[in-house]
């Protein structure tokens, strides 16, 4: 009996060591992207220090700058967005955020709500890889969207097995990623200093596309996400940011209906004139905004939040001093990006048409 218990303990210790190494190898093998810093740094923030959480994809991550909200209103916010993000991912990201934060407002990006196809497995992985909490990982494992096969399920717990074939690219420096602490002074806002004008302006909002319909799965997750926020006493604002490729009046109308039905706010910037310059403020002909467009959106959003929600200013509060410090770094980056974007506008001769 004694030998049996001893063997069992030895076995369990060994299994624990193997699991621990497998987990830690995830830090080395998982692909390094923008989100690596953004999401990992989010997890490293002080507990309950974020009042506004922004979740979305490449549109909103270029449109809303948390540091501008801090500067103007002392609002602590974070742009927890990953390129291609879908509503089913938002559902889990918000849960992930709630493990360490208690936001009063969640801002959601609806750009991908009406997509007719879900993302590929490779892109879907982006949504899973940075989740740290095991409880949420288990939930994702049991969700057929993420845990389709037993391999998918196992790789949610141990992302390393999904990326193991990267061994050919791994350098010794990658080992430094184990247990690394991340810092994201820009709070998830992506500076883009590219300029590519959209000469058609907001024509996309004049004619609807055919057969606009939200996929049943997406609708289900939208309702689930709204419910999740309500249960946690969080206000929801769906913020439609410009994207001429996928948005139109019908999308706006249908989402408005859902917002009314569920009692959440919907602010569609596609239908509002807040000073966006289609020639200067987009990085790729209207699909995404550049830094100029982002600052305009954030400025409008700042007023909107001030007028509609009761979000406290944390300026001067103890424990928030690092926001001011980070703002200085952010400001320098912003200045550089603005210089580049303005020189590009000049070069392209777009300044005269302003």
């Amino acid at each position, binding site marked *: 009996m004694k*030998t*049996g218990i001893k*063997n069992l303990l*030895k*076995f369990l210790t*060994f299994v624990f*060591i*193997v699991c621990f*190494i*497998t987990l830690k*190898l995830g830090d080395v093998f998982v692909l390094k992207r923008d989100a690596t810093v953004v999401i990992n740094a989010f997890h490293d923030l002080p507990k309950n220090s974020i009042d506004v959480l922004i979740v979305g994809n490449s549109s909103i991550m270029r449109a809303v700058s948390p540091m501008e909200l801090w500067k103007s209103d002392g609002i602590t916010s974070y742009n927890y967005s990953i390129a291609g993000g879908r509503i089913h991912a938002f559902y889990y990201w918000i849960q992930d955020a709630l493990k360490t934060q208690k936001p009063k407002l969640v801002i959601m990006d609806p750009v991908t709500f009406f997509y007719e196809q879900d993302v590929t*497995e*490779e892109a879907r992985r982006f949504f899973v890889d940075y989740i740290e909490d095991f409880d949420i990982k288990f939930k994702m494992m049991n969700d057929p969207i993420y845990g389709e096969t*037993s*391999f998918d399920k*196992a*790789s949610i717990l141990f992302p*390393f*097995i*999904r990326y*193991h*074939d990267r*061994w*050919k690219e791994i350098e010794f420096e990658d080992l430094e990623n184990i247990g690394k602490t991340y810092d994201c002074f820009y709070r998830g806002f992506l500076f883009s200093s590219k300029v590519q004008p959209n000469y058609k302006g907001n024509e996309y909002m004049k004619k609807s596309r055919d057969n606009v319909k939200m996929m049943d799965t997406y609708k289900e997750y939208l309702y689930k996400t709204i419910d999740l926020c309500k249960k946690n006493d969080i206000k929801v604002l769906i913020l439609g940011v410009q994207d001429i490729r996928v948005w139109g009046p019908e999308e706006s109308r249908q989402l408005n209906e859902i917002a009314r039905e569920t009692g959440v706010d919907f602010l569609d910037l596609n239908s509002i004139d807040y000073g966006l310059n289609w020639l200067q403020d987009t990085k790729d002909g209207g699909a995404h905004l550049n830094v100029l467009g982002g600052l305009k959106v954030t400025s409008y959003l700042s007023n909107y939040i001030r007028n509609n929600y009761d979000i406290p200013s944390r300026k001067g509060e103890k424990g928030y001093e690092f926001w001011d410090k980070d703002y200085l770094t952010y400001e320098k980056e912003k200045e550089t990006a603005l210089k580049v974007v303005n020189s590009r506008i000049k070069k392209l001769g777009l300044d005269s048409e302003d």
Partner: protein
Amino acid sequence: MSYASLNFLILVIVLMCFYYVCPKKYRWIILLLGNIYFFMSLSGKLIIYSLIATIITYALTILLESSKKNKKKILILNIFLVLAFLLVLKYDNFFLSLLNPIINLVGLKIPYKKFILPIGISYYTLEMIAYSVDVYRKKVKAETNFLKLFTFFTYFPKLIEGPISKYSEMKEKMFSSNCFDYEKFKNAWVLIGYGFIKKMIIADRLGIFVDKIFEQNIIGLPLILAVIFYTIQIYCDFSGCIDIVSGVSELFGINLPVNFKRPFFSTSIQEFWTRWHITLGAWLKEYIFYPISLSKLNMKLNMKVRKIKFKHLARFITIAFPLLFVWLVNGLWHGASIKYVTYGLYYYLLMMLGVLFKPILDFIVKKLKINTEVWSYKLFKILRTILIVCIGMLLFRSDSLTQFTLLFKGLFSFTMPKKITEFGLVYKDFRLVFFYILIIFGVELAGELKVNVREKLNEQNLIFRWLVYIFIIFSILIFGVYGYGFDAKSFIYGGF
């Protein structure tokens, strides 16, 4: 569900838990349930074929045992019925392709039909034949518990790739009460890990290169490499699978028969086939070679050839006749095509030539005063055997005899590729494969020197042992060919 899959490992762990929790007397029932689940997850309703074949074997062997006069007839009926499934399901189109040109002359044609093969049919059919013959020969008593017989024939670790087992050798371990043994448990996982290294790091990686060469009919140096790689691939694939399933079976306290005994250390083709797929060779010897050797026809032939003056030639003829059937069956068992028949005959021809010219070769060796006891001569014989096996593997891997002819000529072409990395593997892959082949070679060499690596490992300190286990596990997890970006490769011998 492949043996090299997460689902299979989960199934094994779950079954193992139930197995050792269950009262000893009923543990085999857990195996039976596991077999049914495994079979059905791969072949679904086709389990009915193995069920019917087992019912036939079960009923006829009991009848055979109790019968006094018609034993042989019952045995033949049993073999015929069991074999009929295999012949119809696997070989129908092959036989029709031979028959149709003949009956076409009188304006007839039987349409071709493709059947889906139940998993493991080539293996369990041979086991059923062996079992009924053994009952006939009174080597084993006819099993009166049908479920036990079904458990044996469909035993999930050996279902897809064997080893071809004998009921008489397995029944005691399978149906006696096996206790959990921590040492055996550890050893079993080491064997499983070793099998996974062979399969997932070496075989599947080399397979990427080999597939590209054979798909594009590349000739010259890349082809020579591909033939060598394929030989290593098929060995690591098949023996790796056997290691995995043997390890899995050991987890339940059941030892499967040995199927590989370091074949690339063989000094002759004859020896190679006593070390490669041993259980198939043993089956062919016991159930094809001996019955034909002892048949009336062969006896008559023996009597006639005894009159020949040259004793060596007489001996040659007496073994040539039964061996022809052995190699025909060997070739056909691998697949229903002329290519596989040729593959069998290739080895048959080489062996017969070896036997025929042995006196001449011995004479030359003697005249040239070649010392056959030195290691260099043994190495020469090993390399010669490997060369013969490699050419056999070229035939085995080719899609048809036409491709084989084309590629065989291509071996002597001196076309150089721009880069060897054009065929799916980069230099890091080659270095990695080389490293693990060296490890496999080391383990095999130790075996050849009668060193049991697993036992030696058990003698080491805990930290060293754990480091080895961790090395095995993370070798597979990091360097294994699996997951997205790779097509999950099934085991090559599972296709037979």
